[in-house]
Every structure is written in structure tokens, then in C-alpha cells.
């Protein structure tokens, strides 16, 4: 049958199978195969042959403690602490914003989501600016400059700063999940408890909390799953003192040329991520049915009066919002105009790192942002990458969504939808590792894409698919099937229907999805860090490079640029009412 939809579906299935499923197998196969470079670490190495060597080395060899178990424990500890902190902060803020009559919600909401909008890197840089310790080299941070004594090392590097900054980056995520659940509570449930004579705290404890508990637990697991995949942040605040997580260990191994070891760690990281998502799904399935709030007619949401506490809570929340949302940006800005890092005084201010030309006495001759070829090239690459990825991801996303919705009874369509979701399950750095193995050499008609810009676009598009398909499904579902059938009866071909009916009606959804992808790709680092070469540098990786070289001012300048770009992107989303917060607001009203 000459059905264009089926043809498109089969093509997409084949392409996605190669870009999503095959890389995973390739990665796993690599961990069981002697690599060319392994001759120098083992005499037995026979390139291309099967081996347990890497798995044994990583899990049971003399280096396993340093390679796997240490980082694994670090990952778990920082993951658990940061998740708990993020949930406490996110949960209480969600309650304040959604359910209480706290003033100033309108402008507190966007500020509270800032840390999640910024690259995670930014918070870590800001932390370093304050707590940098000269013991590991470099200039003192703000803490030392003000207090005159060096901060204790545990405050500068390792578990504490990583956990706290991870929590700062991810609490808005927990906040959104819990706020979504809180917004579905019918006040009448609480009111009837009130009439029974229950106090505010009792209501919170006995009614409100149990109802949102499933969302809360799901938020815990999902947040944890996200923290373990973080690379840039723990690298910046851990690597200087040899503190490694599994994610940073992957990078470190690749830097040392121990590729296969890195792949073993990537597989382990993926397993951890799969486990946490599986647990969360299982939990949601088990509990959600039982706790489903019955919201029939007369649903309404009443704000709870805080009384005398109103302004106190407002002050605490505002201060918190300032410290986690605005202060980091200010610190990055200040840091980027200091001539000598760590020396705080008006005479030390300079615009060199923004508008200065190359000066061999400063920063090894690196010119300021506007004259810096590397930075300008990276800016151009960033915009190009974000734009292309966003467009491709949205268009492919809407087509997959269309197939998934309209051909829901076709098992192949369901499969396509599921495959498109899989990238969500891979921690981004592990996904990068997969593409490293897949495109290192040409396979059949597919050239070796390593080092090309195309590869960056490819991985960015595929990694955005789970989100763009989801946006697309929402958009397509809202378009009644009869609208399309009416055009079909009129004799319009599928192409015409897709162009004239589906696309225009889904356009606002597609546009906002595109913007979300644009912002997402722009701030992405872990995904592409393994695939970047000097020619394909983007702002985030250039900034990361400068950070590794110790050129903090330039790093800060670059991250600040990304931060401002992403904030403007989110502002546009906010304006067109499709951002995360706007959607939440709709739910509440």
C-alpha cells in the first residue's frame, strides 16, 4: 500500500534504531572487546577478541577502588544528600507558592527557577569564586578575601560543595514536580478537615502531605537519577582534590586514553539511571491509582492564610531566591571584570576580558570576548547548533508524535514512540560516550563523524527527541481526528493535510518546543564534551576548557553569556505562555 505515513514510519524506525539502540549495544560490545590501545596495558590483548578484562579490572582489579567503588560511593553520597536538600527546598517552596497566601509570588516564581535554567556549571563556578582554596593552587576566593583565612577544604571541594550546588541546580526540578501535584489538591478536602476541627499543621501532615506523597517520592527518585549523570559540576568542584564521581571518572579515563574502562563505567552509570527511573515508574503506577484525587465538579483551590508569618516567610523565600538565583549571576559578572583573579578592589577592575585585545601579560595573551576568535567561533557554533538541533528535533518530534497518536493501534508506531523516548534514560555523558564509539570509524555508507559538527547536531537532536515527541503528542492529541478526516473526505492528500491542518494547528506547540530545545541545547555540556574538537567548540565547552586552564575570568564571561542567552530564551517562553512556569500557572487557575 502506498501509504506515505507508513513509509515515513519505517524510515524513522530504521534511523532511530541506528541512532538510539545500536549505540548502546556498540558501547556494551566495546566493553567486552580488546581495543587497539590496550596492548600497552596488557600483554594478553588481542584487538577485536572477546575479553572480560575491562570488567574485571574495573570491578575487581587492584585499581577498582579508585576506578569504580570510590567514585560510586561518592556518586551515591552526593546524589542522596543533594536529592534530600533539593526536595526539602523544592517541596516547601512549592507549598508556599501554590497553597499559601505568601506575597510576591508572581516574581518569586521565575527567580526560583533560575538555577535550573542556568547551566549547572554556573552555580559551581559561583561557588568556586567564593570558596576557592589556594591550597590547591590558584588565587584565593571571596571567602578568604573577606575573612582573611582560607576556607576549610571540605567547604571548597568534595562532598559538601558538590551536594549543595547540585541541590541548588535541581531544587527547581523537585519544586515543579511537587507544585504540579499540590495544584491538583481540592481545597474542599482540607476544608472538610478544618470543619472537623483540625489545625493547620494537622491538615498539612494528615491530608496534604499524604496526597502529594506519590509525587514526592517520584520527585526524589527522578532528581536522584538526574544528579548521578551530572558531569561538569562535580568535575569542577571535585577534580582538583581527586574527588571523582562515576561521571567524572568516565571523562578522566577517556582523557587518559583508557577508553574501554570509561565505557564500562558508562554502562554502569546507565544501569543506575535505568534502575532509578524503573523504580519511580513502578512507584507511580502502584500508588497513583490509589491516591488519585477525585476532582469532579466544584474543584477549587483555596490559599491558606499564613497570618503573622506571611512577611517572615516572604523574606526567607526572597533571600533564598536571591542567593541561589541572582547572586551566582552577579558573582560570575564581577569575576569576569577582575584583572587579577581573587584580588578584590576597585583598582583591579578591568574590561579586558570583554573588550581587551591580546596582551601577553594577561591570561597568556588570550584576547577579550569580542576579539577572541575562539569565543566568537564558539558563540557562532553554539547558536548554529542550538538552532539546527531545535528545528530538526521539533520537526522530527511532531512527525513521530503524529504517527504515535494517529496510528496508536499499529505496534510499529508504538515502538517508534518508545525508541524516541530511550535517550531520556541515558545519562548525557554516557550517551556522548556511545556516540564516541559509534562514529569513530566509518560503517558502510555512514562516514566517521567524529570531530564533525554534524555529529554534534545529531546527538543533540536525538537527545532532545524524548521532549519534542512529548510536546508533539500534546499538540497532536489536541487536534481532533475529525478535523483531519474532514480534509481527507474533501480529497486532500496526506502531505496537504499535514501542511494545511496539522502543522498550523500544532504550530504554537511546536514553536515553544523549539524554544525549549534551543535553550536546552545551548546550556548542554556533558552530552557533547566527549565529542568536541577545537573546530567544533561551543560556548559551554570553551568555557570548560578555560576553566581547566585556570582562566577563570574568561570561563565566567562565557558562562555568563550562556546564562543570559538561556534566560532570554526562557523569558520569551514565559511571554508566549508556554514555559514551565506558565504551564504551572495555568494549572493553578
Amino acid at each position, binding site marked *: 500500500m502506498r501509504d506515505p505515513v507508513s513509509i515515513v514510519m519505517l524510515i524513522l524506525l530504521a534511523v532511530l534504531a541506528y541512532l538510539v539502540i545500536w549505540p548502546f549495544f556498540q558501547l556494551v560490545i566495546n566493553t567486552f572487546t580488546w581495543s587497539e590501545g590496550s596492548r600497552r596495558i596488557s600483554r594478553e590483548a588481542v584487538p577485536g577478541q572477546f575479553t572480560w578484562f575491562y570488567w574485571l579490572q574495573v570491578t575487581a582489579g587492584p585499581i577498582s577502588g579508585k576506578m569504580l567503588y570510590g567514585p560510586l560511593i561518592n556518586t551515591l553520597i552526593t546524589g542522596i544528600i543533594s536529592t534530600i536538600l533539593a526536595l526539602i527546598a523544592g517541596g516547601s517552596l512549592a507549598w508556599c507558592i501554590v497553597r499559601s497566601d505568601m506575597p510576591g509570588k508572581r516574581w518569586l516564581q521565575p527567580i526560583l527557577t533560575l538555577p535550573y535554567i542556568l547551566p549547572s556549571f554556573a552555580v559551581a563556578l559561583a561557588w568556586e569564586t567564593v570558596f576557592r582554596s589556594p591550597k590547591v593552587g590558584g588565587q584565593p576566593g571571596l571567602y578568604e578575601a573577606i575573612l582573611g583565612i582560607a576556607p576549610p577544604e571540605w567547604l571548597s571541594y568534595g562532598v559538601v560543595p558538590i551536594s549543595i550546588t547540585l541541590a541548588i541546580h535541581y531544587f527547581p526540578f523537585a519544586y515543579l514536580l511537587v507544585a504540579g501535584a499540590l495544584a491538583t489538591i481540592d481545597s474542599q478536602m482540607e476544608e472538610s478537615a478544618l470543619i472537623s476541627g483540625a489545625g493547620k499543621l494537622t491538615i498539612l501532615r494528615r491530608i496534604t502531605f499524604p496526597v502529594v506523597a506519590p509525587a514526592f517520592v517520584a520527585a526524589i527518585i527522578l532528581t536522584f537519577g538526574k544528579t548521578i549523570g551530572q558531569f561538569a559540576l562535580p568535575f569542577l568542584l571535585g577534580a582538583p582534590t581527586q574527588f571523582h564521581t562515576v561521571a567524572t571518572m568516565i571523562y578522566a579515563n577517556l582523557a587518559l586514553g583508557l577508553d574501554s574502562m570509561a565505557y564500562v563505567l558508562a554502562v554502569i552509570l546507565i544501569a543506575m539511571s535505568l534502575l532509578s527511573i524503573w523504580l519511580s515508574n513502578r512507584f507511580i503506577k502502584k500508588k497513583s491509582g490509589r491516591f488519585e484525587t477525585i476532582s469532579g465538579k466544584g474543584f477549587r483551590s483555596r490559599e491558606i492564610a499564613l497570618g503573622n508569618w506571611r512577611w517572615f516567610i516572604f523574606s526567607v523565600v526572597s533571600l533564598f531566591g536571591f542567593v541561589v538565583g541572582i547572586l551566582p549571576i552577579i558573582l560570575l559578572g564581577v569575576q569576569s571584570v577582575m584583572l587579577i583573579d581573587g584580588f578584590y578592589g576597585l583598582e583591579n577592575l578591568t574590561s579586558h576580558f570583554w573588550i581587551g585585545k591580546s596582551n601577553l601579560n594577561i591570561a597568556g595573551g588570550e584576547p577579550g570576548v569580542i576579539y577572541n576568535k575562539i569565543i566568537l567561533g564558539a558563540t557562532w557554533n553554539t547558536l548554529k547548533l542550538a538552532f539546527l538541533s531545535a528545528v530538526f528535533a521539533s520537526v522530527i518530534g511532531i512527525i513521530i508524535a503524529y504517527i504515535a497518536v494517529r496510528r496508536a493501534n499499529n505496534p510499529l508506531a508504538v515502538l517508534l514512540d518508545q525508541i524516541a523516548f530511550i535517550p531520556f534514560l541515558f545519562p548525557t555523558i554516557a550517551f556522548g560516550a556511545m556516540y564516541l564509539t559509534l562514529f569513530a570509524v566509518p560503517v558502510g555508507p555512514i562516514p566517521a563523524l567524529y570531530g564533525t559538527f554534524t555529529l554534534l547536531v545529531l546527538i543533540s537532536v536525538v537527545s532532545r527527541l524524548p521532549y519534542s515527541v512529548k510536546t508533539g503528542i500534546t499538540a497532536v492529541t489536541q487536534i481532533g481526528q475529525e478535523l483531519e478526516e474532514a480534509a481527507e*473526505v474533501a480529497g486532500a492528500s496526506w502531505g496537504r493535510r499535514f501542511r494545511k491542518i496539522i502543522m498550523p494547528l500544532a504550530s504554537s506547540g511546536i514553536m515553544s518546543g523549539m524554544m525549549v530545545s534551543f535553550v536546552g541545547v545551548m546550556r548542554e555540556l556533558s552530552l557533547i564534551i566527549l565529542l568536541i574538537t577545537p573546530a567544533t567548540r561551543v560556548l559551554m565547552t570553551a568555557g570548560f576548557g578555560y576553566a581547566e586552564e585556570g582562566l577563570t575570568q574568561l570561563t565566567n564571561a562565557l558562562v555568563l553569556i550562556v546564562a543570559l542567552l538561556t534566560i532570554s530564551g526562557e523569558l520569551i517562553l514565559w511571554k508566549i505562555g508556554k514555559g514551565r512556569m506558565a504551564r504551572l500557572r495555568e494549572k493553578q487557575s
Partner: protein
Amino acid sequence: MENWQGAHGALTRKTILKGGGIMAKISIRNLTKRYGDMTALNNVSLEIDNGEFLVLLGPSGCGKTTLLRCLAGLETPDNGEIIIGDEVIFSSKEKIMLPPGKRNLGMVFQSYALWPHMTVRDNVKFGLDVIKTPKEASDRQLDEVLAKLGMGDLSERYPSELSGGQQQRVALARLLATKPPVFLMDEPLSNLDARLRMDMRVELKRFQSDAGATTVYVTHDQTEAMTMSTRVVVMKNGEIQQVSPPAELYKQPQNTFVADFIGMPRINLIEMQGDGQIFSNGDITIDFGWKPGIKNVVLGARPEDLKISSNPKAHGETYRVMAILPNGPETIVQLQRGKTVIIGRIGHDIIFEKNQEVKVTYTQTSLNVYDADTQNLISPINNI
């Protein structure tokens, strides 16, 4: 006929050109459609005459919408054949499945399916664009059809700016614009309020007979079916129960399902036993006046087939009045004799009281008798 030729010129409507007139007789042969284990249409055959207004009626899930969608080409049947005019548009044997756009038909959807991002005019124009109507002819036809439906002033509005009744008119305009020889309508009036529905029935019927198009109309509303159709098809579980003109459908339902489904208040169905022509269920006894030839029957008596008298000396059996439900021009009464409860219909000017005793006789000629085993009508003509 002139009109149709003119409208299309040498355009795509092949069937029109062939015969020089509209050849839109529809033949449905042995159509079967399954969804997994569920059989939505079971071996359905139906002939629809040129210009006929055929209504598909039945409870939800009976297959009426599936049948309409198979006609439209929106569903692919598993088996059978559909012919419109002299063109086979679907055949499982010959592997023919004409896409909807090539079937020369127009459709009004239950939700109207107006495209929300297009103005009224663009909505109507879409179909003309698809068949590549020259601009001049297209404009003329658009103005004509919009004026005819009283939508001329609203042509630049978007669907969301229209009332339900106006939206309905746009859907109708879209159907009429391309002048297809076949109209398909899927519960087009179900989203209107009761009063508007009444007005639209009249109007719909008028446009249909003006256009002379063969119309297949799906509804679950029997009043709609009775008032608008030339013939009604009653369906149940994917099978056709009866095909009759509305009056016959009411008077002579072919089986107890149709008898029960048609008519408001419902028909009285009473299981009875007997020999010869006198039957009884223990409480009531009736002389049919003819011999059904079997022992177990189901009697079908419409509420108006009961003659009810408050005169204790009148002829008939004695019933007790259980409930009185006045309903405007008529009053519905519930009567009981022994364990048997039946519904009767009386004029609004007759006043009964609860628990009053009344005499009841049945209009012999209006009664229908069904075989208790097969539930099918036993015709007196064959059994005299």
C-alpha cells in the same frame, strides 16, 4: 441536472459525467469489519436508492457509525464490496480501496470538524481548492452557498466566534460547496439544543432534497430518524435488524428488538402461551383473531393500542391504575393486572386517579405477534 453539470464542468466528478446525471445509487454487499475480537459489522448488505434519505439508527456500539465511515473510506472493511453509482469504491476481493477524496462524497461530522485556524470562507473553500476549482467559479460558488445558508455576513469569522447553530451551518456549507452526489452525516444535530435541532431538521431536509443527493445519516435519536428519513435502517451488534420506511418501522417492527427500540414510551412486550388464537400469560387473556400456529409467543402492543375505559360496565379485563404521568398533549398511565404491568397512552383530557380500576381492551388489528424462540414477527397473512 443542469446545475450539477455547470458546477463541475469538466472537473473530477466522474460519475456525474458518465451518465449525464447523478448516478449515486449505493450498493453495500456482505460488508464485514472487525476490531480485534469485536465484530463491528457482520456481513451487512444494503441497497440505497438514488436521492434517498437513509437513516442508520441504533444504540451506541451497534455499528452504524462504522458503516458510515466504511462508506466514507475512513475505515477499511475486512470483507465485502461497496459500489457507488457504477464505480466499485471498495472490494476486498479485487483489492480496491478508493481513498475518501476519490469517492465523490461529502461528510458532516458529529463535532462539525471545522478547522479552527481558517475563517468560515476558507473552511468552505478548502474542498474547492483540493479539486482545483478555478478562482472565478470557486468564488461564485462560495458566495452562493454562504448566502443560501445565511452565512454571508459571517464569512470572515473564525469558527470559535460562531454559535453552535452557526458552526453547524458552516459544516453544511462545506458539504454543499463541492456538490457531491452523496452526503454522509454522522449525528450532525446531536450537539445542538433541542429547539435548534428541530429547526435544523427541517432545513437539512430541504437542502438535501434541493441537492437531490443520496444521503446516509447516522443518529441514535429515533425522532430524528422517523421525521427525516425515506427509509430507516435499524442496527444492533453489527447486524441490520430491519430496513423500512418510518411508518412501517413503527407499525410492524420485524423483531422484538426493533419493537422495543422504536417508540416512546416503549412498546408492551408480553410473553404469552396458548393454542389456536387465544393466548394468556395467567393474568391477561387476548384473542388475536388469527392463529400464529405456535404455542409460545411474545405480544407487542403499543401504548396507544390499548383502549382504556373508566366505565366499570365497559367491555374488557379489569386493571388497576398504578401511576399517571401527564406529558402535554397525552398522558401515560401504568396499569397492573395480577403481576403484569403495562403502559397505556390516553388523551390529556381524560383524568384517572391512582388505584382506580379501569377496563382495558386491545385493538386487535394493531397487535404484533412474535415467536418467543426466534423473537421474529409472525405475519398473520401467512398463518390464516
